[in-house]
């Protein structure tokens, strides 16, 4: 499709979406009225700039179903991602949304070279997390044989990869590297596998990691991008040229803004990615601030696709960490510490990557309020912090108690996170 035709489709779909949220979502109607906007104010995609932004906080404030634009009887699926204060971000899909999702994942897999003859091993987690089921429906749509093995159980992953003849692997890039290591120790030779490509996402990864995965697994490693609020995986994905991720912009319209001034930035300038859903029915989002930093490029790709491309994500405009594919905000740690110790102690999160798996350590300064003379009391406090955090975030971590004033303060403000991973 040429850019002109695409723009017409986008404009028409935007008008429908704006109308839908204005009449069905009180939150959006109020926000639009405050800005003096009605559904008739938006004529084309060029008018999107006048619409208000949506943030993760807005989703949280309207927990769980407040921003849904259809009656719950129309919702056929609910997914959720981990939230900052114990409450997850909830996403509802209509039957139409599931069809859209399958369509964009089908494009993702096709761009990675997959077709009906492929065997797709889905080692993303199945469940509330959008990774597993998202890939699953797209894989079925292209007619491939889908192997819904889900995450974990590395020995079985390798065994079935061998026995079932998997040709495409879908998982996080760090798990792909972990599998590569495990494969070299398994006794199964690479030549005995039929694996040819992998679609990897849900966490940031570098070009170095890509090279490592490609060398060790001898496959083409394709980057895919998505976020559960918008739909899950399927927002954007690379083609075999591996030169930027094609955004499915007939469904998700991208803008790049300066996260501080909120001004729209031109092509090729690094800024925060903002997405507007153009076809979502269950949970349409207007100008959703992803907090992911990237750049857009509108030139046609060597593969021939005219869809706009985005760079691999280059960081975040907030303090969210992605650890083993799971989102973590320092504020989550803060609220757990407050709950357990009754105060807000100084703490530091240290993220690293060892043997291709993310590690998380939490250092907590021991203050007088919860210091105890007995080793066993301190040890059980330490364990309680660890267990509470592990169960509320789903991320395994190590907790270390440290002396007061040993965590570095910069300009009076504590530094909360040290990320030693190189992205």
């Amino acid at each position, binding site marked *: 499709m040429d850019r002109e035709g695409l723009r017409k489709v986008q404009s028409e779909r935007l008008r429908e979406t704006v109308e839908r949220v204005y009449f069905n979502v009180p939150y959006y109607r109020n926000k639009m009225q405050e800005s003096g906007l009605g559904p008739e104010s938006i004529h084309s995609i060029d008018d999107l700039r006048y619409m208000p932004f949506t943030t993760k906080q807005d989703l949280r404030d309207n927990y769980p179903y407040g921003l849904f634009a259809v009656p719950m009887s129309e919702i056929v699926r609910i997914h959720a991602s981990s939230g900052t204060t114990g409450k997850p971000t909830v996403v509802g899909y209509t039957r139409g949304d599931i069809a859209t999702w399958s369509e964009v994942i089908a494009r993702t897999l096709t761009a990675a070279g997959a077709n009906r003859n492929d065997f797709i091993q889905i080692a993303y987690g199945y469940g509330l997390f959008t990774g597993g089921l998202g890939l699953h429906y797209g894989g079925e749509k292209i007619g491939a044989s889908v192997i819904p093995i889900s995450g974990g159980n590395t020995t079985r992953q390798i065994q079935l990869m061998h026995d079932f003849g998997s040709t495409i692997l879908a998982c996080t890039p760090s798990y792909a590297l972990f599998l590569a290591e495990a494969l070299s120790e398994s006794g199964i030779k690479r030549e005995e596998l039929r694996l040819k490509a992998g679609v990897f996402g849900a966490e940031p990864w570098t070009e170095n990691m890509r090279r490592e995965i490609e060398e060790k697994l001898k496959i083409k490693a394709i980057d895919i991008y998505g976020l559960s609020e918008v739909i899950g995986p399927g927002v954007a994905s690379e083609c075999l040229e591996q030169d930027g991720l094609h955004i499915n912009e007939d469904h998700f319209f991208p803008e790049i803004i300066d996260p501080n001034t909120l001004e729209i930035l031109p092509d090729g300038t690094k800024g925060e990615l903002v997405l507007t859903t153009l076809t979502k029915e269950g949970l349409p989002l207007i100008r959703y601030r992803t907090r992911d930093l990237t750049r857009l490029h509108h030139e046609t790709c060597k593969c021939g696709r005219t869809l706009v491309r985005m760079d691999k994500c280059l960081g975040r405009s907030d303090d969210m960490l992605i650890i083993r594919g799971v989102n973590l905000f320092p504020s989550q740690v803060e609220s757990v510490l407050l709950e357990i110790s009754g105060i807000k102690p100084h703490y530091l999160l240290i993220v690293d990557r060892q043997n291709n798996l993310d590690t998380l350590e939490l250092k907590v300064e*021991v*203050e*007088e309020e919860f*210091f*105890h*003379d*007995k*080793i066993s009391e*301190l*040890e059980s406090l330490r364990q309680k912090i660890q267990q509470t955090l592990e169960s509320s975030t789903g991320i395994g971590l190590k907790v*270390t*108690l*440290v*002396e*007061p*004033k*040993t965590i570095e303060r910069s300009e009076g403000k504590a530094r909360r996170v040290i990320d030693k991973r190189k992205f």
Partner: protein
Amino acid sequence: MPGYELKNKQNLSINISKADIMIIQQLSIFLENKSGRLTDVLEVLGSENIRITALSVADTAEFGILRVIVSEPEKAKELLKKNAFTVNITEVISVCAPDEAKHYAKVLKILSDRNISVEYTYAFSVEEKSIIILKCSNNLDAIGALKSHEVELLTSSDLYKI
């Protein structure tokens, strides 16, 4: 005083204020297991000529608790706090017994017979006498029990004279 029960008439002469004096204020200081930290504490205390009567360290792989009995506990606490240490004052008791194992055992037996548990203990020896520091689940009950068996209890001023 709750929890303080006199077990026999012989002890009626012990009044509460006497028991209070037998309570000794011990400083407990949180330390990471890093070399030089103990030196840092002692240097801070030394800078104000604070005297140390007894000292013990309990530790795990990552952190430790330094327990120390000093001449001026309140002053020492403030001093350490000013130097960014986490410090608490913990109440312990101290007894004096001949430095043979059987006497230490007897002290502990008296307490366990009364269902008083010892959270931790440490000791040092001076001129064939053991000075034993005890942190009990109930220090006042422990004082009563030990007194009734004529175990010699030390006051803080006794300790500082050592």
